[in-house]
């Protein structure tokens, strides 16, 4: 799945299209007086990468625990591939692969032993199991360390068998709960690449994080949670549009900047043009769409462009606009 662009067309929510793979309706969970999840409903289409974004304590982990049948909701239902999911039910869980926030594997066992154990619990046996274990070890780049005990792995390295364990049984939906927490940047990047590759292969993803850039990089649609509620949902473009923020196009140029500014103001996509130190600052609804006309106008006016940078409004801005708080307060 390519990185999101602001030119991506909005085709409406997946729930309006093919039958969703995942349907969560009216989920609610309270712990005493604390309402951790309050009336959360979401749908994930087959092959879609859905991001659940929110600060710590927003209710993301509680929500996916209920989705995976690990926590009984006080209200609401969960269906995966039309099968109800619940605590104590085994049915439906074969469609889910969980990559929890903790390592959640046995450190005294090797990577291979952990995967064989979990594969057997998923119903895999014999040669099929052995073959699949080899495959997923290859996918996550652990083939050469399959026999090493996990307690000898670095923190970032330990995430790999955790992801491998989630993939063993070829789930239709892979649930990743903050998979890069506590991981070094290099390992983090590797994990994101692997996740993006899985999404490209057609595995549906539910990816939770409080890192906006991860969600933007990996996910097709994003749900923003705060205080246990799903406060916004949509593609990145939809969310940004919702807060009516414009792209910033910073132009470094020499020449007749006034004339250039006048030409740009005449464009429909341009909301505002200001002079800045050494150039122009253009606010546009779709900054990248303005670039061809900007370049043509500069050439016609003999203005020398030395640099152009487009900064699109991000989910951080969306969250700030919706809640009045930063995503990582």
């Amino acid at each position: 799945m390519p990185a999101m662009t602001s030119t991506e067309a909005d085709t409406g929510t997946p729930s309006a299209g093919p039958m969703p793979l995942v349907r969560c309706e009216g989920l609610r969970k309270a712990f005493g007086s604390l309402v951790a999840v309050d009336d959360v409903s979401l749908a994930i289409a087959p092959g879609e990468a859905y991001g659940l974004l929110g600060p710590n304590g927003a209710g993301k982990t509680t929500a996916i625990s209920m989705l995976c049948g690990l926590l009984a909701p006080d209200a609401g239902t969960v269906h995966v591939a039309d099968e109800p999911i619940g605590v104590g039910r085994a049915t439906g869980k074969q469609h889910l692969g969980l990559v929890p926030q903790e390592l959640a594997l046995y450190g005294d066992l090797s990577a291979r032993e952990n995967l064989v154990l979990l594969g057997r619990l998923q119903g895999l046996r014999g040669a099929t199991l052995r073959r699949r274990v080899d495959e997923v070890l290859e996918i996550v780049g652990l083939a050469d360390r399959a026999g090493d005990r996990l307690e000898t792995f670095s923190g970032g390295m330990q995430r790999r068998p955790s992801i491998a364990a989630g993939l063993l049984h070829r789930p239709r939906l892979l649930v990743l709960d903050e998979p890069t927490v506590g991981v070094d940047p290099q390992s983090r990047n590797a994990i994101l690449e692997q996740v993006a590759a899985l999404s490209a292969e057609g595995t549906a993803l539910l990816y939770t994080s409080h890192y906006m850039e991860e969600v933007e990089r990996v996910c097709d649609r994003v749900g923003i949670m705060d205080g246990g509620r799903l406060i916004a949902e949509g593609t990145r473009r939809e969310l940004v549009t919702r807060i009516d923020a414009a792209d910033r196009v910073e132009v470094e140029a020499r020449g007749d900047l006034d004339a250039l500014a006048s030409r740009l103001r005449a464009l429909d996509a341009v909301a505002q043009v200001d002079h800045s130190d050494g150039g122009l600052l253009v606010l546009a609804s779709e900054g990248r769409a303005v670039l061809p006309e900007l370049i043509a106008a500069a050439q016609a006016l003999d203005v020398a462009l030395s640099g152009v940078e487009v900064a699109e409004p991000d989910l951080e801005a969306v969250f700030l606009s919706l809640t009045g708080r930063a995503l990582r307060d």
Partner: protein
Amino acid sequence: MRAMLIIAGRDLRSRLRDRSGLVAGIVAPAALAVIISLAFSGAGTDPVRLALADADDSDLSADIAAELREAMDDVDEVVLVDAASRAEASALVDDGEVGAAVVLPEGLQEALEEATGEPEEVAVGVIGGTGAPLSTAIAEGLAGAVAAQVEQTATAVAATVATGVQQAVAEGAFAAPDDADDADDADVALDDDLTALLLPPGVEGFEELGEEAAQAEAALALEEAGGAEDRLDAASYFGPSMAVLSALLVVTTAPRALIRERRTGTLQRLRAAPIPAWAPAAGLGVSVAVVGLVAMLVIQGIVAVALGASLGDPLGLLALSLAVVAFAGALSALIASLVRTESQADGLATAVTFSLALVGGHFIELHALPEGLQTLALATPNGWALRGYTALAADGASVTEILAPIGVVLGFAVVLVLLALPGLRRQGA
């Protein structure tokens, strides 16, 4: 079921790799069983040496001394050493040659012949050695037995004399006290003084004397006291005792393991698989139950082979051991339902296990406990289990004859599981 066994297999593999678990669960209790068995069996310990001094040097004292020697000949743990006098006996005690001494006092036979002996006048002496409480206690026991024998003999003698007097009175040879003035042919009138002379202190009349004489016991003898446990050697008692303790120690590690799995997230990972919700906890339970049962059988095997312990019917042994493991598992479930952290689990498991062990007779044989504690032991399933093991070993009971202890132990298990279920459901275990 398959998921439960897979999870149990994983836990067993981890426990085998973790040798400290094997040491704590099997090696340590086995060593404890051997050590305690050897300590209480008296193997290799020297017999108690007592001196016996005959200060009376009479036929009676010689007879009493001979009876004592004859009685001690059958007791390997006690050796009697002759001393010529009280002084020599005291010297032997002071020198450490003997632990204590029994002294037959001077005037013993005379006091008996007079049949008027006050207890303090025929007191059998005991010279106790410093730092020899066992020897002194045995000497006091022997002295007490001798004193009782002497008193009974005096009573019997007086009764015999009185019987003879009564016969004589009946035949007219003596006149009864009240008839003394009317006696014509009587050679002797039984006046108050003569009557007092014939009757021992505390005896009011010839009829009472006759009754006391009839109850007089025969020769001095050491009686074996106690029940079946006394006939059970130390290894045969403490082998099963330590085996039960081992099972409790091993199986009650399950709550800690469950909490650790919850903390590390592996429990969540397991429950995310398409398996029954109870499978992870049940798998842990099966694993510790297997280890607990193996530990019990290994320990009992060690004491049987190494110390010659007699454990009884193998089927009964297995059945009772399975019941013990079931109880230990139920106890683990209850502990798991009550605690939140691993340290809480460890603390509660240890406290409960050793409390049960102390009350149930694991470190001191049941029959040696005060009566109140013996009764309290009946409130513990492990106390019942030890009774079952004792019946197997000492009485040669079969499995059908120990159904009561097995049933009680299993009954405790059922109750504990019922108590644990609400808490476990609340925790989602």
